[in-house]
C-alpha cells in the first residue's frame, strides 16, 4: 500500500473514534457514513473504468432487505452481514452479466432502470415487504451477546471502521494488481485491452460484482444501524447520493469515498433538516461546481495542499 496513505488513514480513524466519544450522537452518523463509504468504494472501482452507475442503491437495498427478511430466523450480526454481502454478490452477478456488456450511457441508465424496478417491487409487493411502511429490524446480537443500545452502537461503529480499513486496503491492493490496472484501460481505450488478450467484459464484471458486494455489505450495516428498512433505500435519489459522494471525495484514492461520505453525512444532518425540499438542489449544484472546477474532489484538494511536494512526476 501507498506509504503516504498510512498517516492520513490512522489520523482519520482516530478522529472518528475521538469525535464519537466527545459527541455520542455522532456514533450513528459515522456508522452510516462508513457504510455508505463502503458502497462508494464500489462506485470508485467502476469510476476507474470510466463507468458510472445510477442504480447502486439497488444493492444497498438488497443488503438491507436481506437483513430485514432473515432477522426473524437469524439474530446474529456476524452472520447477517456476510449474508447481506452474499445477497449483493449474487444479484450483482446476475445483473452484471447483462450490464457489463454496456458502457457509458447504457451502463448508467440500465442500472437506474434495474434499481427503479426493484424499488417498485418493494413498494408493491406489500404482503412481503410491508410496502412504504418498511420493516422494523429488532436489534440483533453480536457474537452471541445481547448488548445494551450504547454498547451495540459502539460495537457496530468499531466493527464498521475495521471493515472499512480492511476493505479499503484490499481495494487499493486490487487496484494495484494487473486486473485492477485493466480498469483504467477500459476507460482510455478498450480495444487495445482486448488486443492484449484481456476480456474487457470480464474485467468490468469482476469490478461490478465487487462493487455490488461492497454495497450489499454497506446496506446490511445500514439495516443493523437504523434498525428499520424502507423501499426508499433503492430510490434513485439514494443512488445519486452514492455517485455524489464518490465525486465529492474524489476517485483518486481509496480514502476519497470515506472522506466524502463523512463530510456528506455531517453536512446532511444540518442542511437536510434546514432545507428539506431543496436538499437535492444543493447536492446537484455542488456536484456541478466540483465537476466543472475541481474534478478530483476533496481528496484532490488534500493532495494539492499537503502532498504536492513529494508527488511523483
Amino acid at each position, binding site marked *: 500500500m501507498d506509504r503516504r496513505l498510512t498517516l492520513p488513514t490512522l489520523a482519520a480513524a482516530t478522529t472518528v473514534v475521538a469525535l464519537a466519544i466527545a459527541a455520542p450522537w455522532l456514533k450513528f452518523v459515522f456508522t452510516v457514513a462508513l457504510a455508505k463509504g463502503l458502497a462508494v468504494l464500489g462506485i470508485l472501482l467502476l*469510476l476507474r473504468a*470510466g*463507468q*458510472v452507475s*445510477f442504480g447502486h442503491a439497488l444493492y444497498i437495498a438488497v443488503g438491507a432487505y436481506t437483513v430485514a427478511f432473515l432477522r426473524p430466523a437469524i439474530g446474529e450480526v456476524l452472520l447477517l452481514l456476510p449474508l447481506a454481502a452474499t445477497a449483493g454478490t449474487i444479484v450483482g452477478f446476475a445483473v452484471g452479466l*447483462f450490464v457489463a*456488456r*454496456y458502457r*457509458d*450511457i*447504457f451502463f*448508467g*441508465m*440500465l442500472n*437506474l*432502470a*434495474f434499481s*427503479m*424496478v426493484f424499488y*417498485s*417491487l418493494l413498494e*408493491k*409487493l406489500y404482503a412481503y415487504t410491508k410496502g412504504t411502511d418498511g420493516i422494523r429490524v429488532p436489534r440483533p446480537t453480536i457474537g452471541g451477546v445481547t448488548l445494551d443500545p450504547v454498547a451495540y452502537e459502539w460495537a457496530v461503529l468499531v466493527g464498521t471502521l475495521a471493515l472499512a480499513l480492511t476493505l479499503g486496503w484490499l481495494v487499493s491492493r486490487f487496484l494495484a494488481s494487473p486486473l485492477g490496472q485493466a480498469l483504467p484501460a477500459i*476507460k482510455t*481505450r*478498450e*480495444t*487495445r485491452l482486448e*488486443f492484449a488478450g484481456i476480456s474487457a467484459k470480464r474485467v468490468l464484471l469482476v469490478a461490478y460484482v465487487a462493487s455490488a458486494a461492497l454495497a450489499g455489505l454497506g446496506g446490511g450495516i445500514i439495516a443493523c444501524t437504523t434498525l428499520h428498512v424502507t423501499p426508499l433505500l433503492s430510490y*434513485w*435519489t439514494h443512488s*445519486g447520493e452514492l*455517485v455524489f459522494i464518490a*465525486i465529492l471525495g474524489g476517485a483518486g484514492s481509496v480514502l476519497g469515498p470515506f472522506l466524502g461520505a463523512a463530510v456528506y453525512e455531517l453536512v446532511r444532518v444540518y442542511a437536510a433538516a434546514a432545507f428539506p*425540499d*431543496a*436538499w*437535492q*438542489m444543493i*447536492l*446537484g*449544484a455542488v*456536484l*456541478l461546481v466540483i*465537476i*466543472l472546477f475541481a*474534478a478530483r474532489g476533496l481528496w484532490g484538494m488534500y493532495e494539492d495542499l499537503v502532498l504536492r511536494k513529494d508527488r511523483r512526476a
Partner: protein
Amino acid sequence: MTLLLFLAILDGLAYAAQVFMVAVGLTLIFGVLRILNVAHGSFFAIGGYVAATLGTWAAATAAAPVLALPVLLLAAVMVGGVLGPAIERLVLARIYTKEHVLQLLVTFALFMILEDVQKLVWGVQPIFQDGPVRALGQVEVGDIIYTAYQLYLLPGVALATLFGLMWFLRRTLTGRVIVAVTEDREAATAMGIDANRVYLLTFTVGTVLAALGGALASPTTSLVPGVGVNMIVLSFAVVATAGLGQIEGAMLTALLIGLGRSVAVYFAPEFEVVIPYIIMVAVLLIRPHGLFGRPELRRV
C-alpha cells in the same frame, strides 16, 4: 374480455403518444450532441406543471374552452424556450469536450436541481387540470365512451411531431445542416456550419418537445414529485430499445412499450412497472444496439 382488451389498446395508444413526445426529444438531442440528457424527464415534469398552472388560470377566464388547448402549447414553448437555451449555453457548452462520465454526471446534477425546483415552486401535493379534456368532450367507440382528447389529440400530436421532424430534417436547409453536424461535425464545420448554433437549436427543440409531452400529459395524469424520474427512465427504455438516435424507431418502440404497459395495467397490474424493462432487456439481449441502432465503429 375483448372490451377490456380494446380499452387497453386505446389507453396504450394515448400513453405511447405521450412517451414518444419525450423520447423523441431525448433521442434527437443524443443524435446531435452525443449527450444523454438525464434532466430530460424534468423538462417533461416542468412542462406539465406550468401547463397545469396556466390551465387553471385560463379556466377562470371567460374564454375557458377556447384557451384550454393553446395554453398547453404556450406552456411548452415557454418552458423549452427558457430552460433549453439557458442550460445548453451555461452548462452543456462547457462539457462537450469532457469525458462521457462527466457529461452524464452533469446532466444528472441538473436533474437533481430541477427536481427540487418543482418541489419548491409547486409543492408536493398532486396537481391536476381537466380543462383540455372537457373542451374536446367525449366520443363513442363501439361500446366504449372515451375522451376525444386521448383518442384524437394525443396520437394526432405525436404523429404530427414525427412527420414534422422527418420533413424538417430531410427537406429543409436547417434540418439538413443538423443532419450534417450529426454525421461529421468536423467536416460540417469546415464547410462553414456553426456547430454551436446547431447544438443550441437542437437542444431547444428537444426541450420544447419534452415540455409539450408534459403539458399534454397534465390533463390525464396528476403531477406529483417523481413523475420526472419515471419518465426519463421510461423514455430511455424506449430510446434504447429503438437504438439511440433513431427517430422513427422511437415511435415504433413507444407503441410497443405503451401497449405492453396498458395491457399489463388491465390484465396483470402487478407487472405494470416491470413490462417496459422486460421488453427493453429482451430486445437488448438479442440486439445490443437496439432494434434499429447501428454499432459504433471501434477506435483502436
